[in-house]
């Protein structure tokens, strides 16, 4: 028997129908709201695009990334609506903002204010763009005795800098030219300091929390470069710029180049300033990779801790012996195959097995265990054992106390570059093309650990502000 309240099929169907209708309405409403929102967003985007377009009228490369891609966004919604089973939703295709090109502007658009520095690859001045009043760094490329036309190093510098858009890499805004074909200038963002000069003028080294922040920024930039198949090949404190907000940017791509896997043939070993040059380069390896930048990073880490360069060799041989003194002597176990490197044949290493390990731990008594683990791994003689930049970023050292200091909390310093001419530093320059990489004659490293027994090892303890 059926009662009036029994749930029969009709009832159920009617109920379902009502429910469906309700839901449909709800969906239509949501859809409408969504469409409205989208239209609004699109309108905003367009307005923004128009704004940037009018801002950047007639100007070179640096607006490229914001260039609206709408011209090429062609969707063919019509065809897809034929399939009724699924709701007609236009599939979004990935679109890339395409940069443009145009002729170089003249350097007269800038007013030079003061020289900052003369590096091995060019003269840098502080300058003001006349039209906007913006302060920039203007680097004149050295053409010197180039007999093969435009120097390939300068071409690579421009190519790699143009390809690098990263918060911690100096931004190349445009390339401007002067009256003769030899006058080519890079216009870059101006930063108040470089780490080297800054450290020289500081009474105390950076605090551990500050060093962590600096290293994190640096590693993220190196990670970006390596991910984009760029080797910097001249990382050092004088190439790391810093502004008054605790932000650093890597500069000077005069040695940078694209690489690949496997590495391209005929790469020169004459790269990286001596004090930051990895042992495999000193030993004449003709195949090298990202690990050479990681070695430099290790040297910079040590330099930030000590407030002075870590491995100040006088020449290639001296540099190598300084490295072995600090990091120990490589063996076939720790670095398989190192003896087959071109310059390794002339090495005479100490025979005894004792006392040939690394003394990094002892040299940096204030560094925590994880910290010295990181430093030791960056300064691994065997390039294969050095961590990648991404591994550095994930290192527990950055998660233990003291935590990395917020950049906003960094102290500010008077800017030398902003006001006065800088003195030339007594530090070696990046190697010039044409120097012959060689190790003269027999190299005797057997004596470098002779005095180690007599050294005092470790003090009691000291208190240190963190």
């Amino acid at each position, binding site marked *: 028997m059926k009662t009036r309240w029994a749930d029969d099929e009709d009832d159920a169907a009617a109920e379902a129908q009502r429910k469906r209708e309700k839901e449909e309405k709800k969906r239509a409403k949501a859809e409408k709201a969504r469409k409205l929102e989208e239209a609004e967003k699109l309108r905003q985007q367009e307005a923004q695009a128009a704004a940037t377009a009018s801002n950047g009228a007639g100007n*070179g*490369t640096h607006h*490229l*990334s914001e260039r609206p891609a709408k*011209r090429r966004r*062609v*969707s*063919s919604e019509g*065809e897809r609506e034929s399939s009724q089973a699924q709701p007609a939703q236009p*599939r979004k*295709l*990935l*679109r*890339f903002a*395409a*940069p*443009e*090109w*145009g*002729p*170089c*502007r*003249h350097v007269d658009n800038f007013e030079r204010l003061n020289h900052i520095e003369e590096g091995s690859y060019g003269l840098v001045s502080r300058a003001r763009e006349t039209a906007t009043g913006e302060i920039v760094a203007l680097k004149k490329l050295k053409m010197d005795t180039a007999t*093969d*036309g*435009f120097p*390939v190093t300068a*071409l*690579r510098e*421009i*190519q790699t800098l*143009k*390809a690098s*858009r990263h918060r911690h890499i100096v931004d190349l805004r*445009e*390339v401007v*030219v002067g*009256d*003769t*074909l030899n006058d*080519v200038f890079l216009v870059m963002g101006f930063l108040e300091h470089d780490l080297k000069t800054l450290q020289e003028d500081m009474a105390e080294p950076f605090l551990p929390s500050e060093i962590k922040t600096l290293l994190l920024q640096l590693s993220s930039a190196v990670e970006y470069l390596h991910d*984009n*198949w760029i080797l910097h090949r001249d990382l050092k404190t004088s190439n790391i710029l810093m502004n008054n907000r605790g932000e650093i940017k890597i500069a000077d791509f005069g040695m940078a180049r694209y690489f690949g896997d496997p590495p*391209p*043939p*005929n790469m020169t070993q004459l790269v990286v300033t001596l004090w930051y040059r990895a042992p495999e380069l000193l030993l004449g390896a003709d195949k090298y990779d990202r690990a050479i930048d990681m070695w430099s990073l290790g040297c910079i880490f040590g330099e930030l801790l000590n407030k002075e360069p870590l491995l100040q060799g006088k020449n290639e041989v001296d540099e190598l012996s300084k490295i072995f003194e600090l990091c120990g002597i490589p063996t076939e176990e720790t670095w398989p195959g190192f003896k087959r490197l071109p310059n390794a044949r002339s090495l005479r290493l100490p025979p005894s097995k004792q006392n040939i390990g690394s003394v990094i731990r002892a040299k940096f008594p204030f560094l925590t265990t994880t910290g010295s683990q990181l430093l030791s791994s960056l300064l691994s003689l065997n390039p294969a054992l050095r961590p990648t930049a991404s591994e550095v970023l994930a290192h527990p050292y950055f998660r233990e106390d003291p935590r990395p200091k917020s950049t906003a909390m960094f102290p500010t310093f008077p800017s030398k570059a902003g006001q006065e001419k800088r003195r030339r530093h007594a530090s070696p320059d990046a190697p010039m093309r044409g120097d012959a990489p060689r190790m003269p004659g027999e190299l005797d490293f057997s004596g470098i650990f002779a005095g180690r027994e007599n050294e005092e090892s470790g003090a009691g303890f000291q208190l240190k502000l963190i």
Partner: protein
Amino acid sequence: MSILVNPLATVDQLSQSGSQLDGVPADLENSIRFAGARLTQAAGILLRLPQDIIAQAIVIFTRFFVGPEGGSLKEYGAKVRNPVALVSIIEAHTTQDISAGSLYLMAKLSSTPRSPRSVLNVYAYLDSFPSTFVDASEFDEEKDPESYYLTEGTYHAQRTLLLRTEALILRVLGFQTHVALPYTLCINYLQTLDVFSHPESQDLAKRAFAQLNTLLLSPQLVYLTHQPYALATASIYLAARELGVKLPDEEWWEVFDTDREELGFLVVAMRSMEGFAAEEKRKWGKRKVPLTVEEIEGELERRSLLNGRG
């Protein structure tokens, strides 16, 4: 900028070129550009450069001539429109110089650099043929070495010119030397489409590459208007059509970020190349396509005379 993305020509640059401003008719401009690109390809092969470097050089060569601020076929010899580049460039550059300059520049940036002497020797050799459209068999014939010998004096003069041309190209392009190419993407896409199990897959890949190479010479300048992913997709689509290789029924090109409209445009551009090339060959016959300023002026004069008579 990603390594996979190219800078593209703006609407402005496409709608007007320096050459057109100087009164070079569009059809002559196309002929010269086609001849110049072919010359670059031929010289690249003789210099034993990898095809990707040659392709980059052709793209640079093509970029140089677009836009009102780009180089003009007719006048970049005497002057270049861009006032910055104008300064101190007084030598007569020829289309051939721009071709040589592009090739020299891109080889220098690669792991296979070539010396100015090699480059100039190759261009002198190619210049010694009496017509632009040389039959392949003519290259095998014994040639009198005198006809393409570069004296030491000429070499030095041309070398200076080559290096200045290089600087000029860099200035006109604002040092934008980045050229992304579709070749590797093409292989990658073919792998993704899983066609390498197909017996004809080798031919398919070769055919797709051939399409991409041909497209470098297109009067539609597609390497300046379309990104490599679209070029790679279209080349696979057409090659598969031509060889009867079956690809998925779905709109697979969308997986590679190319929509139907782009695909259609590029396929039409590719298919028009055969007719375009044949027509060019027929039009110029045994004559040389004018590549120097004087030759271009001579050609313009010839045309106006012909028109006057007609």
